[in-house]
Every structure is written in structure tokens, then in C-alpha cells.
């Protein structure tokens, strides 16, 4: 009897306790308003913050993340009914701040969120910081590039001159063969050097197969193969005693070399490619015909070879056409790459172009003297002055090739502008849905976020609502939500997003598929400084 009574009493007590606890149980709290408002730009630093919730809460974490990423915990706050009033730190500077909060409501579940606001204006992205430079690797890459150019322009170009301008004496064929050899050696080592540069690896890892794989995997890999083909053809042209065969090999070598330069490099990557790639090929082929002729012609003239005069004649007839093409293509590429005159002096790329143009002016002056003053005496039999002058011309050409090889390290103004505006993109694919998400530009500051959404099996997905939820746990930034709109191009977009810090952000897409079905996709995206 007693035991039953005891049992009942304890059950009633337990039940009462359950009811008491359950009475307190309520919903997850949600933020209903904030001061400053989420996404606001305010003129002056606020003296206090206020967060209003759907029900009474107890703050667990209140912190402000400054524009430089420093987080400050806010300990000075008061809870009034459903509001939390927080004293602001005194020294808030200009830029985008994040007020991150984490509270627990009566149901015991902590919930968090962030209020993003800017003082004065949203934080702008700091200027891009250049990659750290490994001088040894860069020098090696530069020297290899010069070697490649020597092989292509003086070697393959020289073989072309041997075959077409001085086919009888074949003066300077050994020098041409040596230059082709330098080109081949440079082509053979350059994938390794390219790999070192691509991976940011030190010179010591030159023998590492992974480095070579990385080098060959870039578009430069194809260039190297084509260059090797061009140089082998050039070598055969220089060695061949059969005039027709020699001309065929020389022409193939020149064409392959010109094509090789169009498959990688800054200029070939520029739009419109239907214009830039042929321009690169024309510029390269015309340059090679011109500068390649210097060594065989100069040596033929100095040695007084029997075909020196006829070779000089052929060269003089042909060269205005080549130079016209060279200049036209060069102007097209310069305009596309430099974009604005100011960039000529304002960027490393522009400065190299100016230096190259300066050398080119010297080269044209020498060429004009050769053509106007020295060619006639040379044809009349006194070729020493012209041979000397051609020697000087060759030296200037070497300087120009060295400068052109330096472009390897200077992104053109066009590419710098594109790099800054480049979006950060990520593809998310689950069984239920997939999305191509991009943040433009993919760097800190005000950004536009857009997503192309499809079903998991690539079908159309006509969502009712889409929202982006950003968080940066590493920086202490709790999630904040931005509703997306449909601009009408098949994407969902939110323009009122400010991402104040660089680094890993988590992004969640909330896709309301029907009134009753929601799909949430979560991913990480890297935001550049």
C-alpha cells in the first residue's frame, strides 16, 4: 500500500516537473530587428547596438568583427524584455563591421546570426599583393625563355634564311645549328622550370616528377612540343643539302614555331582570340624572317660569299612586307593588352613594352641606314660596313628578345583588370539539386552573388524562393542571410552583399522548391583579399 502511494507521489512530482519544464519550452528565437539594420551603411559610428528577438533570450556571445578581421568581444550589454542593448566599442573605424551574436532562448537551443553594417562606406578591397618571388626560379625561367626565343627567331628564322636567301653558300649554317641547339636545350628544360614556377617550388625540386607534370599540364606543355617540332624541322633545313627539301623543312619550322607561340602566353589568352592568335603568329613569323636573316646574311657578306649579293637582294625585296605585318600585328596586340595609355608607364608590362619599343626604334634606325646607305655599296662589292652594321643589329635583337622574355612575369594591364574582377565560383551537386554559385568580384568588399540552379539530374528547377546564407566561422562571423531575386536571365542573384574579410566562407543556398519542399546546399568558397 505504502509503496503504491510512494510510487504515485513520485510520478506526480515527476509529471509536475515535466510540465513545468515543458511550459518553458518554446521556439528557437529569431532576430526580428537590429540597430544598425543588417546591411546598413551608416554615416557615423553608432554608440550602441540593439538586437530585437522574437522572444526573451540570454546572450552567449556578442562580438564585433572589424574590417581588418580582428574580433572584439562585447561584454557591456543589457537585456530588456526581448531586446539586447549593447554598448559599442569607442574606436570603431570606417569600413564594414560584423556584429555577430549567439543567444540561447528558453528552449535551450543556441542560435546565432550576424548583422553586417558599414561605417562611411563598405570596406573596399585592399590592393592585390604580388606573389612572393623566387628569384632563382624566375631567372632560370627567363633564361630558358631567351633560349627558346634564340632557337625560334635566330635558329628557325636563320634556317629559313639559309634555305631561301643564301641557299648556295649556306653561310652561317653552323651558327644557325648552334642556335637551334640552344633552343632545343631550352625547350627540354623549360617544362621543369615552368612547373617550379607554377607550384611555387624551389630550384632544388627541379628533378621532382610532380614538378614536370605540373609544367607540362599547363598550356605551355603544348608550346614546348610544338617548339621542339619546329626546331627539329629547322635543324633538318640547316643540314639538308637538297635545296627544295631544305626550303620545305625551313618553312614548316617557321610555321610551327609561330604556331607554338600562339598556344600559350598572355597575348594568345586575350580576347578576341580570332584576332590575337593570328596576330601573335604573324608577329612571330615576320620577326623570325627578319632577325633570322641577320646572321646568315651578315656572315655571307663578311665572307664575300658568291650568293651574298643575290641573297641581300631577295631579303631587301621581301623584308618590307614582313616588317609591315610585324608592325601591324604588334600594334593590335599592344592596344589589346595595354588598354589605356596610362598603363604604359603605370604597369611593369607597359614599361617593358616601352623599353622594347625604344630598342625597336634603334633597330629600325640601323635597318634604315643599312637599307638606304649600306646596301648599295654592298651590292657593288664593299660589304664590310653592312656586315658590321648587321652585327650591331643582331645585338639589339638579342636585347629585344631578352625584354620580350621578361613579359613572362608581367601580367598585362588587361589581365590585371580581369584578375581583380574575377569571380569566386563553386559548383555544388547533390542528389536533390545542383548549383553554380559565383561571387563577383571574388574579393572582399561589396559583391554580387548569383546562382544557376538545376535539379540533381541537370533538369530545370524553377524555385519559388532562394536565399544565400553566409558565415565565416574562422573569423567569428555567424550566419547572415540575403534573399535572392530573379533578374530574368535564369539565375538567382543578391546584390546587397558585403563580404568584409578574405578567406574561407561557408555559403548555404536555401532553395524553396515548392511551398512544402526546401533544399539546402552548403559549400565553401574562397574570397581573395
Amino acid at each position, binding site marked *: 500500500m505504502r509503496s503504491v502511494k*510512494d510510487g504515485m507521489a*513520485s510520478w506526480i512530482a515527476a509529471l509536475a516537473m*515535466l510540465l513545468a519544464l515543458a511550459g518553458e*519550452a*518554446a*521556439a528557437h528565437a529569431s532576430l526580428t530587428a537590429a540597430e544598425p539594420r543588417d546591411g546598413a551603411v551608416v554615416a557615423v559610428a553608432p554608440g550602441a547596438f540593439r538586437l530585437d528577438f522574437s522572444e526573451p533570450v540570454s546572450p552567449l556571445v556578442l562580438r564585433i568583427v572589424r574590417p581588418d578581421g580582428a574580433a572584439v568581444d562585447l561584454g557591456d550589454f543589457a537585456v530588456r524584455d526581448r531586446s539586447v542593448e549593447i554598448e559599442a566599442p569607442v574606436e570603431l573605424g570606417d569600413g564594414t563591421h560584423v556584429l555577430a551574436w549567439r543567444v540561447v532562448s528558453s528552449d*535551450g537551443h543556441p542560435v546565432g546570426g550576424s548583422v553586417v553594417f558599414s561605417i562611411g562606406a563598405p570596406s573596399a578591397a585592399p590592393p592585390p599583393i604580388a606573389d612572393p618571388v623566387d628569384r632563382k626560379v624566375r631567372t632560370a625561367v627567363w633564361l630558358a625563355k631567351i633560349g627558346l626565343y634564340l632557337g625560334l627567331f635566330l635558329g628557325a628564322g636563320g634556317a629559313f634564311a639559309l634555305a631561301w636567301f643564301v641557299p648556295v653558300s649556306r653561310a652561317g649554317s653552323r651558327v644557325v645549328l648552334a642556335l637551334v641547339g640552344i633552343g632545343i636545350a631550352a625547350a627540354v628544360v623549360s617544362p621543369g622550370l615552368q612547373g617550379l614556377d607554377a607550384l611555387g617550388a624551389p630550384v632544388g625540386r627541379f628533378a621532382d616528377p610532380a614538378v614536370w607534370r605540373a609544367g607540362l599540364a599547363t598550356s605551355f606543355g603544348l608550346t614546348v612540343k610544338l617548339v621542339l617540332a619546329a626546331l627539329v624541322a629547322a635543324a633538318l633545313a640547316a643540314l639538308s643539302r637538297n635545296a627544295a627539301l631544305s626550303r620545305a623543312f625551313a618553312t614548316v619550322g617557321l610555321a610551327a614555331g609561330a604556331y607554338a607561340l600562339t598556344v600559350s602566353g598572355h597575348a594568345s589568352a586575350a580576347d578576341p582570340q580570332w584576332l590575337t592568335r593570328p596576330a601573335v603568329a604573324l608577329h612571330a613569323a615576320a620577326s623570325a624572317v627578319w632577325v633570322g636573316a641577320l646572321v646568315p646574311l651578315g656572315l655571307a657578306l663578311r665572307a664575300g660569299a658568291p650568293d651574298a649579293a643575290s641573297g641581300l637582294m631577295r631579303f631587301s625585296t621581301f623584308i618590307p612586307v614582313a616588317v609591315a605585318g610585324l608592325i601591324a600585328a604588334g600594334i593590335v596586340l599592344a592596344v589589346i593588352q595595354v588598354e589605356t595609355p596610362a598603363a604604359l608607364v603605370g604597369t611593369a608590362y607597359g614599361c617593358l613594352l616601352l623599353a622594347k619599343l625604344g630598342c625597336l626604334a634603334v633597330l629600325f634606325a640601323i635597318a634604315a641606314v643599312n637599307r638606304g646607305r649600306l646596301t648599295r655599296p654592298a651590292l657593288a662589292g664593299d660589304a664590310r660596313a653592312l656586315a658590321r652594321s648587321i652585327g650591331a643589329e643582331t645585338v639589339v635583337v638579342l636585347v629585344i628578345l631578352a625584354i620580350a622574355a621578361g613579359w613572362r612575369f608581367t601580367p598585362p594591364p588587361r589581365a590585371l583588370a580581369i584578375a581583380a574582377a574575377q569571380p569566386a565560383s563553386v559548383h555544388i551537386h547533390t542528389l536533390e539539386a545542383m548549383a553554380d554559385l559565383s561571387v563577383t568580384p571574388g574579393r572582399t568588399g561589396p559583391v554580387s552573388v548569383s546562382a544557376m540552379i538545376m535539379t540533381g539530374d541537370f533538369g530545370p528547377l524553377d524555385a519559388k524562393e532562394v536565399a544565400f546564407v553566409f558565415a565565416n566561422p574562422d573569423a567569428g562571423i555567424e550566419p547572415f542571410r540575403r534573399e535572392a531575386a530573379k533578374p530574368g536571365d535564369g539565375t538567382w542573384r543578391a546584390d546587397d552583399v558585403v563580404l568584409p574579410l578574405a578567406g574561407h566562407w561557408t555559403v548555404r543556398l536555401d532553395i524553396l522548391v515548392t*511551398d512544402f519542399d*526546401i533544399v539546402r546546399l552548403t559549400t565553401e568558397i574562397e574570397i581573395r583579399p
Partner: protein
Amino acid sequence: MFKHIITASGLLALGTASALAHVSLEGEEAAIGSTYKAVFRVPHGCEGEPTNVVRVRIPEGLIAVKPMPKPGWALEKVRGAYAATYEYHGSQVSEGVTEIVWSGGSLADDEYDEFVLRGYITPALKAGETLYFPVVQECPGGLAERWIEVPAEGQSADDLEMPAPGVAIIEATGGH
């Protein structure tokens, strides 16, 4: 005594997810082969606005659904095809009510109300599963509270922002 408190707390812990101010279901269990009475507890409107539409999507496996009319609210029964065909009192059933809409009423943000329907728990549902009823509360001005999230594998309803109310399916309670 202490043991009973623990038992009660255990029940509380289990019940918490549905005892919140989310839309929740009154009963905690529904037996296979029985007619289940679902009582939806709607504890508020949306962000200060009154709720004037409550929509419930009928989950697959619950058939012969009948809502209970509610004074002050218009009742709409959206019919559609089921994903499967079910046997019900000797006949084959392949379509029926798939959504119920109570509309035109007013449930202020500081009020509480209940919405009731019943349906037959078919043997297609397995014991140990939870049967989820996605619910949408609509308010004037396009506002809506959507209790439509179903936990994925390894998730609990507590992990969700907008958990759909659910009821645990249990074995048939004999004698049917």
C-alpha cells in the same frame, strides 16, 4: 522518485522537438493499420502578423484522410494521385487527399490554435520511421512560416531551423 524524474526527463528530451513553438503534433505515436488522429498545434502567427492560412501536405502512406472542419475557417481538400496503390477495406486506393488548406481565419501572433485531421496509417509505412507532415502558415503581406524541413540521415529535428512536425510509426497494436 529519482528514477521517475529521469524517465520523465527522458520523455521530455524526446518530446522537446515537438514541444516547441514550432507547429507540432499532439500524439507521439501512430500504429500501423490504425486510423490516426493528427492534432496540429499552431502556437503563433508570423512575425507579428496573424496567420490566416494553414496548409498541411499529406505524407505518402497516409490515406483516407478527412480533415475536421473548423469554425471561422474555410476548408479545402486538394486531391491528387498517390505514389503507390494501397489496399483499404478490401478496395484498391490510388488517389485521395494530398493537401489540406484551412483559410480565411485569423490566428493572432499571441494566440494558439489546433487543426485536426485523421487518416489511415497504411502498412506501407514501417515501424521506427517518423511520418512527417510539412506545414505552411501563411500570413497577410506574403509572409509565411514554413515547417517543412525533414531531418536527413544523421540529423535530428533540433538541427533544423524549420522542422516539420512528425509522428513515430509503431507496430500494429493487435486485434485489428
